[in-house]
């Protein structure tokens, strides 16, 4: 349904462009939930914005690569241009529900605004449809809440409104950029199950971006692991958790504190993620990797396939699963 091919998003300054993502490629099938995991700054948000056509400034642009929605090229189109050309099937929800809604408009009006763009031919009463959408996202008392202002609602409610707005655009793909990071854990799992429910009912594909492995475990079908603008490993969620092969992924799992082993020191990954300007050639993780060899430091690293649906970009994939 959604296909990202060789996507390179760069910051164009006076000097050489800085690559935020490098030749990123992944696909999402219809009705599939793909999780993208990575630390802050690895380029996952920019990827999602590029897919949406919402790159924040003229200096950040898609240098090479394509984004295809159901086969149609939507790479360089802004959202309103996509509507014009009838290829507007991607919606997005953002990380900060507290600031993502217009404070001076009622939430119902904000949903209706989206409806008017995408539902024009349908002829249904927008108010009724809004109520339907609010019910769909489990907002109680829809008739009353439609007239509420954003500041009158809690964070979880606002995020549901965001989802309702996204649904109003009739999406085939929902891009969710860390939608639960700013919410309480209990609210978080409500939102996650809502997303899963919507996927089941509407056959909607979901690109779910997060830095939280626990969330990925709960929600995703497949997972991509990103580091410094590159995907280093992709797999089914079960496979990834049992048998991560890339040293970075391995390191991510090993970082997690294990409450059963309390007196041991924590296992951080040594070093720090590189700045945009300092991304090394070859494997971006090489400077921090314990298994690095010379051929890791230059040239593109090819994908090494493991079982079907599991591949990693590494010359030294680990085997044997996680240490118990």
């Amino acid at each position, binding site marked *: 349904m959604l296909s990202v091919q060789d996507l390179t998003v760069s910051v164009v300054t006076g*000097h*050489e462009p800085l690559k935020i993502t490098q030749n990123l490629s992944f696909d999402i099938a219809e009705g599939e939930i793909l999780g993208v995991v990575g630390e802050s700054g690895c380029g996952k948000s920019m990827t999602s914005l590029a897919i949406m056509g919402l790159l924040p400034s003229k200096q950040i642009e898609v240098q090479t690569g394509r984004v295809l929605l159901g086969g149609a090229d939507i790479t360089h189109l802004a959202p309103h241009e996509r509507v014009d050309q009838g290829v507007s099937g991607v919606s997005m929800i953002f990380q900060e529900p507290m600031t993502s809604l217009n404070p001076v408009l009622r939430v119902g009006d904000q949903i209706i605004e989206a409806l008017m763009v995408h539902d024009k031919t349908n002829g249904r009463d927008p108010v009724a449809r809004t109520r339907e959408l609010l019910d769909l996202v489990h907002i109680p008392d829809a008739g009353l809440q439609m007239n509420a202002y954003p500041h009158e609602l809690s964070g979880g409610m606002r995020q549901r409104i965001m989802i309702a707005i996204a649904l109003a655009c009739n999406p085939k793909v929902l891009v969710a950029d860390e939608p639960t990071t700013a919410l309480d854990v209990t609210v978080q799992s409500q939102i996650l199950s809502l997303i899963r429910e919507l996927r089941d009912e509407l056959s909607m594909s979901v690109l779910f971006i997060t830095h939280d492995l626990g969330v990925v475990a709960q929600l995703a079908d497949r997972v991509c692991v990103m580091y410094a603008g590159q995907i280093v490993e992709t797999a089914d969620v079960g496979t990834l958790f049992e048998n991560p092969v890339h040293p970075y992924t391995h390191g991510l799992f090993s970082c997690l504190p294990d409450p059963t082993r309390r007196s041991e020191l924590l296992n951080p990954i040594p070093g720090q993620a590189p*700045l945009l*300007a300092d991304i090394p050639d070859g494997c971006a993780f090489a400077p921090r990797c314990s298994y690095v060899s010379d051929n890791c430091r230059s040239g593109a690293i090819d994908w090494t396939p493991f079982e079907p649906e599991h591949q990693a970009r590494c010359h030294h994939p680990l085997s044997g699963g996680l240490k118990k």
Partner: protein
Amino acid sequence: MELISSWLAPFMKRRLSLFGLIVLISVIFAALLAPFITPYDPLAMDPIGRLQTPNWQHWFGTDHFGRDTLSRVLYGARLALLIGTGVVGFAMATGVPIGVLSVLFPRIGNVLMRMVDLMMAFPALLLALGLIVILGQGVTNAILAIGVVYLTTTARITYSVALRLKAETFVEAGRSMGAGTWWLATRHIIPNLVSPLLVQASFVFAFAQLGAASLDFLGLGAPPDIPSWGNMLAESRRYITRAPWLLFFPGAMIVLTAFSLNLVGDALRDRLDPRFRDELANKGKP
């Protein structure tokens, strides 16, 4: 050296800001050097040579008393500088302590800020006029009157910045280490006030020019025998059709001075903007 260059950087970025800085420096120089560079005595009258259009002997022409406009304009710059410095100095010397004390000692602070609010209930010029009535006319009183007006805004700004600083974690951290109030004030709050107050100072300097000019124009500021731009404009009224240069030069000086101060203040404020500072920091990287 790096500190100076980082302060200069916002001026290098935009030509207009650089222009403002150059003009400002020129005006300051003109004012300071006035006694040495004026071609004539600003007070010397020449009844025969009245109302001359600008010519080679009198670059800016002469006024209705035959006084050389250029010389008067240059001396006017001295007065303008004096007033500006006086107003800014007074406003800072009174406003900053009020603001800082109000933050450090909230109970007194409440009362103090209420009083400041009360003063701000009077529109600016009106407050100045009222004070002039009480104090009488004259340059020092004009400085005081305008200074009181901007004391209020300075106190307000100091208060809000200091309040925000107080709530910052580094102050909490300091307190948790056992730091006393005075130490916090001098080491943390006041140094962080320098930048916003510097910006405020340039804007106040600009407003002081306009305020003083207005007072002079109304005849309530500098006495008529002292050459000031406002006075010159007031005197030019009767002759504006016959001698429009008398209208142009003093007014243009007021505008240039205020404008350049505003430009400089804007550039300084940009330097404070954290995003701009990140740009500066990253300049070295490819």
